[in-house]
């Protein structure tokens, strides 16, 4: 009898334990037909949904889907313009910008969203050091004229309208009635975890865990009369440990919409016949929108010699980078700070100038510069030595470890430089080390994207980040642009002029001139073109994703790309 009781109790204990374990582990089962799975925007467990924090979780971080918090406008990559979101329209007079808000905008708790909330949100950047605080370098005042009108006064010393417009598409508007209680100091504001975010967007945070973040559609979204209702009832971002796990899930159809770098994606439809797509069906598959480049230390011998930089520029095998490192997602890079294809700025590109003043992959020309113009002699180890005895290398080229496409690009740079006789070596530190060395200018060669992402201010912003020396501290101190401290007064004055001009013809002339200065001085070497976001969809469960043949929305995971959620449909 005793033995029986012991057995019974044991069985009961085990049953209860197992039951609780399986209960604890059971994930929330969401109806697949109503759920969209997204990958590539969140790595690591979510800790904060505070859009003011340095790196909040998806979707509250900058440059991610504006699903909980919204901006005034959204940048449309296809037209180069800002489309309405909370804002209806904006108008410039000489030094003032008037923004009209949409009627009926509301917070998710039902409180109306008014111009006061907008003014409050923008002023947070003035009060504290936040991601958009530089907005206040260009602006002196922001006022609410009435509930639906915001008036922004430009800084007359820096009347850079383009820069201000960029912020309209980047700054999240937060509810004053909630945030005014938290906003008691910089630390309090940044450390607030905001685990029950109240935004103005079409989705609410349903749940989060180290494995996934789940959003649920808000059927009372104020924007429904303007924009309609987004199709998925739930949006889930599973948090993958690595790129390959995410790509595998995408290939299997467990992820519908991905932003991950996925090598050889075309094999998914060409070889495996999967319902997978990107923006273009053929190369380069994505719209190029940024220029990852090789930053050169301009203050270190012999890299301070423009001829050495030119030889290096001729030595690099750009077609190979496009083919291998970018997995054919980029045309070979040209010697220009203007992207020649895809994006609206292509109208400023001049092939004639590139042919005349620029460079391309041509090892023979690199050797000619080294031997004839620099009078360098090849040492016994195959590396050139300048007449003053300076050996061309070893130069260390760095980028963060794990950024596979960049690591591969630098491998190509190193190999093609060594092939002509310039000793370049690669090193892959952790990302924070790379950031520190970049910002303080402590490098020989470093890979970085000038003005990454895409804004209405491109290509101006890219020229600015590469060539503007005003406001850049010397090497050793932290800079936020112009990391190799290039300085050219002519370029600075052209940049100032370009920021004020709207006339396309004049702009074209200025950009050409800036680009010619760039090609002469070579502060950085463009290596490849990268899309703003990798835009990849699997139509196993959802169809109707925009693409080149159906260009109904920007191929983005942010800005105007949020329209994609309204356009897709569950597959029958």
């Amino acid at each position, binding site marked *: 009898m005793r033995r029986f009781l012991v057995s019974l109790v044991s069985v009961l204990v085990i049953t209860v334990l197992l039951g609780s374990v399986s209960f604890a582990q059971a994930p929330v089962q969401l109806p697949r037909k109503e759920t969209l799975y997204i990958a590539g925007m969140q790595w690591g467990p979510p800790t904060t949904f505070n859009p003011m924090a340095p790196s909040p979780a998806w979707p509250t971080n900058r440059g991610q889907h504006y699903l909980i918090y919204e901006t005034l406008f959204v940048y449309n990559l296809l037209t180069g313009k800002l489309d309405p979101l909370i804002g209806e329209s904006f108008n410039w007079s000489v030094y003032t910008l008037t923004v009209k808000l949409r009627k009926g905008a509301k917070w998710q708790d039902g409180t109306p969203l008014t111009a006061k909330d907008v003014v409050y949100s923008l002023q947070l950047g003035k009060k504290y050091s936040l991601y958009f605080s530089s907005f206040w370098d260009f602006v002196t005042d922001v006022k609410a004229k009435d509930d639906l009108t915001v008036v922004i006064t430009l800084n007359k010393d820096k009347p850079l309208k383009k820069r201000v417009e960029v912020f309209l598409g980047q700054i999240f508007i937060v509810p004053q009635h909630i945030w005014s209680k938290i906003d008691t100091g910089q630390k309090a504001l940044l450390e607030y975890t905001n685990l029950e975010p109240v935004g103005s967007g079409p989705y609410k945070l349903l749940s989060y865990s180290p494995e996934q973040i789940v959003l649920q559609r808000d059927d009372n979204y104020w924007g429904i009369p303007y924009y309609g209702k987004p199709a998925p009832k739930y949006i889930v971002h599973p948090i993958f440990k690595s790129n*390959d796990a995410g790509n595998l899930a995408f290939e299997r159809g467990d992820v519908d919409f991905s932003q991950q770098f996925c090598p050889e994606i075309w094999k998914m439809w060409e070889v495996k016949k999967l319902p997978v797509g990107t923006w273009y069906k053929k190369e380069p598959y994505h719209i190029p929108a940024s220029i990852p480049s090789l930053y050169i230390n301009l203050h270190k011998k012999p890299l301070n010699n423009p001829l050495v930089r030119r030889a290096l520029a001729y030595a690099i095998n750009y077609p*190979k980078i496009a*083919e291998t490192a970018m997995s*054919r997602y980029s045309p070979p890079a040209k010697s220009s700070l203007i992207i020649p294809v895809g994006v609206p700025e292509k109208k400023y590109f001049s092939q004639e100038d590139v042919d005349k003043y620029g460079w391309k992959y041509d090892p023979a020309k690199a050797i000619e510069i080294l031997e004839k113009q620099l009078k360098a002699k090849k040492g016994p180890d195959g590396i050139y030595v300048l007449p003053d005895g300076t050996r061309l290398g070893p130069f260390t080229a760095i980028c963060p470890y794990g950024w596979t496409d960049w690591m591969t690009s630098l491998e*190509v740079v190193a190999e*093609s430089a060594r092939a002509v006789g310039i000793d370049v*070596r690669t090193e892959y530190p952790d990302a924070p080390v790379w950031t520190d060395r970049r910002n303080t200018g402590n490098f020989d060669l470093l890979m970085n994207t000038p003005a990454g992402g895409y804004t209405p201010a491109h290509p101006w912003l890219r020229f600015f980040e590469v060539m503007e020396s005003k406001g850049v501290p010397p090497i050793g101190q932290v800079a936020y642009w112009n990391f190799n401290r290039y300085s050219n007064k002519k370029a600075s004055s052209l940049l100032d002029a370009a920021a004020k001009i709207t006339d396309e013809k004049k702009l074209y002339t200025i950009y050409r001139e800036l680009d010619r200065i760039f090609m002469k001085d070579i502060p950085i070497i463009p290596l490849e073109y990268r899309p703003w976001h990798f835009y990849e969809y699997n139509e196993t469960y959802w169809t109707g994703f925009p693409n080149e043949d159906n260009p109904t929305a920007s191929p983005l995971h942010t800005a105007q790309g949020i329209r994609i959620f309204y356009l897709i449909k569950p597959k029958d």
Partner: protein
Amino acid sequence: MKDILILLFRSKRFIVGFVLFLGILSFALIGPMLNPKNPFQMVGGLFSPPSDRFILGTDNLGRDVFTQLMYGTRTSLLIGCTAGVIATTIGVTIGSVAGYKGGIVEEVLMGITNVFITIPSIVILILLSIAIKARSAIVMGLVIGVTAWPWTARAVRAQTSSLKTREHIDIARITGFSSIEMIIYEILPYMFSYIFMAFILQFSGGILNEATLSMLGLGPFQTVSLGVMLHWSLLWEAVRTGAWWAFIPPVICLSITTFSLMSMNSGMDEVFNPRLRRS
């Protein structure tokens, strides 16, 4: 010596291991002489499949996998051998001194060894690799070697403790040999076969450790090894994209190399260990 060799070649395991190892060695050493291509030259496209031009296709950087394999095997062998020599030297030195001296010296040395054994060597390896800025193949071998010696030290100490009670040691001691002379001339020669076997195990362990570290991205810079090849193929998702030629050949090379060394070791054990020796 001749007798030992005759004995060794009676062991089938040793012969199999020896032949395979010789094959790998000639592939890594003689191969590059017959095929003097630059393993870093980007000759093809992204993961070009095997063809007449590239027997084993190309990797993610468009480099010939076959050429990479030759040079990579050579580097891996170099790293394994360096690690083996270093680990065996440290292990034998500490083990024999501890075993012969006994007392407080033994306590201290074995204490250190035991501390090393309890810390997983992979942790020390990773930390050391991160700390070292210039990781050449030799430095990698050194790093692996200095973390792999403890179990050799323990085994050698046990052997020495047993050997030192033999009669010939007493006789040598009477003739006035110093401790070092005693260890070198009177103890180590009796353990030579054991030390050599330990070296072979450390050699193969070194190769595997190199592959582990390199796959984590902590491998040698500016060179190609079997681990580095695997590292790039994993980073570029060769498994998902079906580029088997980028990861299967280095895996096969690694397996053959370690199998040949293990097989030789096992064969030697058969010959040298009286309990396993067949008449």
